[in-house]
């Protein structure tokens, strides 16, 4: 058995040496590493569809260079993400690595990007500190702080005095909690209690019971996008919807991808986020239609625009450096870029390489049989508050 | 002085009492046999002597020392060991390895993790001669599980002897051995070193009277009588309770 693989390897090496890429036109490779299996598989599917959609619409050559997309599954496990990233850089010679469905996955890959000087586009993970982990990181998704601060302002302005916060006990959750609490208190609001729920948690009922007993005006919630449905189910089952406690939170809990599974009880939930499938712009309508054509079973959510705009960022950067794939030049080209995204006008903050975008307050409403987050208030050019506060 | 002694030894499992205040005395170098019908409590007694079972009451003494509270492996170190009626061997190891292992443990080299097993020439030499002595020389390297039953019985005894015990409990050494090969086992038993005290647990009368110089009869957990072969053979109580029924076979 060992002898056979020995011979096969020899043949492969000879072949590879024989066909050195002599093609005139150089190829620029983009490696997307995202969870296509495991508990966060829905994020991966959104990334893949959005990236393929962008290339379908904008062609596969930019500034004279042929673009090749390589999509790999890391099953949401950090050691896989790190291994695949170094393999893509080492073997496939990718010029960009992108994706990163969870904070630990981005944190694990940051040192690899720094060492290899390869731009790293974060299309999902929302913890503020990620962009500080490597000068080669640029984020096109969102930060928890952006949504949390806006919903805190809105709550303070709309007669919400006492709030209980309930977040999942991991980095994005801590960010969402801290930004909301600081902002809400600065506007005179009172935080009755801050509950943290373990990430490995099959049942929210006992925690919601605790909220019911605390009797706040509103319950502020952050849970990973996949968990929104079971939380909503048990929110209703606990009778919190009839108890006059309003449910507010970041857009993660009413994720467009699974909103329809919530049932009518979700109507009226107020959240703040940077993208809704029902965003009224013409560009978004066209985007949603094209997305549905490519993958009818999926409804584009905020993860999809993270990937779509990430691809746009890569194309624009290549245009500015007319095809040169030097890491530092690309990052410099990306800083300060402004463009119209399906979610609305967005730009890359030159100092923090993080995304600056409009955050919308939206309410869950039923439109021709389906539930949507209908936007009714917008706050343009919102920067990441956590980093802004540090300055 | 007695090589092995029990003082009012008792074992109670709820209502039943398989060992009922047994005071057994086995002299140095004796060829002592313990006989009794099935269910008389022989096996329980052996387990009490080897420490597998803890007694409800009474003491076990080895060479005068009290070993009642010692664990099985500690008692082996003090010099008491046993063979098993049903073979309890190391299937994957070869006879050579099994014997060398026992000698290694005896010489307190069992826990060494760096030296090579069998590297110590003295041990290898002793193991080889023991194998020779128990007629296992021709199968010395075979896996124990592949040995014929007779050879396995020989190995059973060889392992016990390899520990250089002061007291050896022989549990029906010829059990299951076909008629043709029985004489080999009996020769081995007879050839056991003189300085080893042997307590033979057996119900086959030919073997008992051919071997033992003292006999104790155990009935329903109690020692009925103890004496030399002649006394036992003619004792009416033994004849009635035990020999009487089995006189024919």
């Amino acid at each position, binding site marked *: 058995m060992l002898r056979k693989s020995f011979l096969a390897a020899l043949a492969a090496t000879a072949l590879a040496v024989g066909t050195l890429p002599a093609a005139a036109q150089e190829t620029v490779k983009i490696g997307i590493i995202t969870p296509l299996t495991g508990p966060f598989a829905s994020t991966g599917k959104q990334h893949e569809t959005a990236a393929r959609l962008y290339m379908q619409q904008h062609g596969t050559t930019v500034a004279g260079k042929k673009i090749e997309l390589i999509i790999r599954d890391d099953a949401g496990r950090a*050691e896989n993400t790190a291994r695949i990233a170094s*393999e893509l850089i080492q073997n496939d010679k990718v010029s960009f690595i992108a994706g990163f469905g969870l904070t630990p996955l981005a944190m694990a890959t940051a040192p690899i990007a720094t060492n290899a000087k390869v731009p790293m586009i974060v299309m999902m993970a929302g913890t503020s500190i990620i962009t500080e982990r490597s000068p080669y990181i640029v984020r096109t998704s969102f930060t928890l702080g952006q949504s949390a601060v806006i919903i805190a302002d809105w709550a303070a302005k709309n007669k919400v005095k006492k709030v209980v916060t309930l977040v999942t006990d991991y980095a994005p959750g801590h960010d969402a909690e801290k930004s909301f609490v600081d902002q809400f208190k600065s506007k005179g609001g009172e935080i009755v209690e801050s509950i943290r729920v373990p990430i490995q948690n099959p049942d929210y009922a006992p925690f919601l019971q605790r909220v019911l007993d605390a009797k706040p005006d509103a319950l502020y919630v952050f849970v990973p996008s996949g968990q929104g449905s079971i939380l909503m189910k048990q929110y209703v089952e606990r009778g919190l919807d009839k108890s006059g406690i309003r449910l507010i939170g970041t857009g993660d809990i009413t994720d467009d991808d699974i909103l329809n599974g919530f049932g009518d009880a979700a109507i009226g939930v107020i959240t703040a986020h940077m993208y809704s499938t029902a965003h009224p712009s013409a560009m978004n309508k066209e985007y949603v239609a094209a997305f549905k054509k490519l993958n009818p079973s999926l409804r584009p959510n905020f993860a999809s625009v993270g990937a779509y705009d990430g691809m746009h960022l890569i194309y624009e950067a290549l245009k500015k450096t007319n095809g040169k794939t030097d890491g530092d030049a690309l990052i410099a080209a990306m800083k300060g870029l402004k463009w119209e995204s399906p979610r609305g006008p967005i730009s890359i903050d030159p100092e923090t390489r993080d995304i600056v975008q409009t955050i919308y307050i939206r309410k869950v409403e039923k439109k021709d049989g389906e539930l949507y987050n209908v936007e009714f208030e917008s706050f343009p050019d919102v920067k990441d508050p956590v980093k802004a506060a540090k300055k | 002085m007695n090589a092995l002694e029990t003082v009012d030894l008792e074992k109670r499992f709820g209502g039943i009492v398989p060992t009922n205040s047994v005071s057994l005395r086995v002299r140095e170098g004796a060829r002592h046999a313990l006989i009794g019908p099935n269910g008389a409590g022989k096996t329980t007694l052996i387990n009490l002597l080897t420490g597998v079972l803890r007694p409800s009451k009474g003491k076990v003494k080895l060479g005068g020392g009290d070993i009642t509270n010692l664990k099985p492996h500690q008692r082996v170190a003090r010099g008491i060991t046993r063979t098993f009626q049903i073979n309890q061997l190391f299937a994957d190891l070869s006879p050579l390895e099994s014997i060398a292992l026992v000698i*290694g443990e005896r010489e307190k080299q069992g826990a060494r993790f760096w030296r090579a097993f069998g590297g110590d020439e003295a041990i290898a030499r002793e193991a080889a001669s023991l194998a020779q002595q128990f007629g296992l020389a021709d199968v010395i390297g075979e896996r124990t599980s592949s040995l014929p039953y007779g050879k396995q019985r020989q190995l059973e005894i060889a392992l016990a002897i390899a520990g250089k015990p002061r007291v050896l409990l022989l549990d029906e050494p010829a059990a299951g051995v076909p008629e043709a090969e029985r004489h080999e086992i009996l020769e081995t038993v007879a050839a056991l070193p003189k300085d080893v005290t042997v307590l033979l647990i057996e119900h086959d009368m030919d073997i008992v009277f051919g071997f033992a110089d003292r006999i104790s009869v155990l009935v329903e957990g109690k020692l009925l009588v103890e004496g030399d072969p002649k006394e036992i053979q003619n004792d009416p109580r033994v004849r009635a309770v035990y020999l009487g029924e089995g006189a024919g076979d």
Partner: protein
Amino acid sequence: MSTADTFRQADAALKKKRAWHWLEYVFWLAVAATVFLFPSQHTLLTQIAIWSLFALSLDLLLGYAGIVSLGHAAYFGFGAYVAALFAINFTGEPLTVLLVAGIAAGLLGLVTSLLVLRGSDLTRLMVTLGIALVMYELANQMSWLTGGADGLTGMPVNPVFGVFPISFRPTNSYIYVLCVLFVLFVVARRIVHSPFGYSLRAIKGNPLRASSIGISTNRRLIAVYALGAAYAGVAGALLAQTTPVVSLTYIDFQRSADVLLMLIIGGTGYLYGGIVGSALFLIAQKFIGNVTPQYWEFWIGFALVVIALFARDRGVFSIIERVANALRKEKAKP
């Protein structure tokens, strides 16, 4: 045959058992050759080498002492966290870090062995599972120390002996991990062929007889359990050094299950099972994974059922087992 002949024969048989078989030399030469033959696969090969060491640590327990475990990742993860925290707070010198991680995991093994070694196989499966779950919860709750669900990053890894840099260098990392694997393999091989190693096989073969020839079975099993835990801790430290994050996945049920499956695929009780099993498992996972990422689980499940059904004895990979038996028979013959 005279006693002298028997002794010569016996001595030769014992020596032959210990000696390195030519097939083993070929095996390790082939392993060394992979450094040059598959330059593009070094990150995957590094992972295979680390899983091999981890599976080897379980083989010491399962293959040689018959101790079943469904939570061996507890020591792997503990070793990784200790390595990371030690490197961050004291020194990134890789070999010291490995040593500290090994000792820490070994101590944890020593302590938990008292819980594990009571009761039958079934109880041991459940207790080891329980221990791994408690360690997982500990790592998750103490996020101030272990980084919790986000993982622990920023572990410094100095060049080996100050000259041979390994961080972010897949080739050097692979050579480093291979050397550690080889050294620990040779040590394990020596221990397995020592009186202590044989007493383990005796205990596994027949615990009743083992105690009745003077072996204190509990002390020996505790010792090998601690040794296995230490080896697993070193494997965990190696993964921490070659991957920029130590996360909860180092200690979750998936890892304990995978290492058990790898070992059983490779076959237990001849030390090479762990290496062969992890290579087959990870290479299959990579290629099947690229073809149908979602349904990799189905094929590994199917492979397990087939192996469990058809590999008659001890569910080992029957082809490998037959090779191993041939290997053993050839040595055992005088």
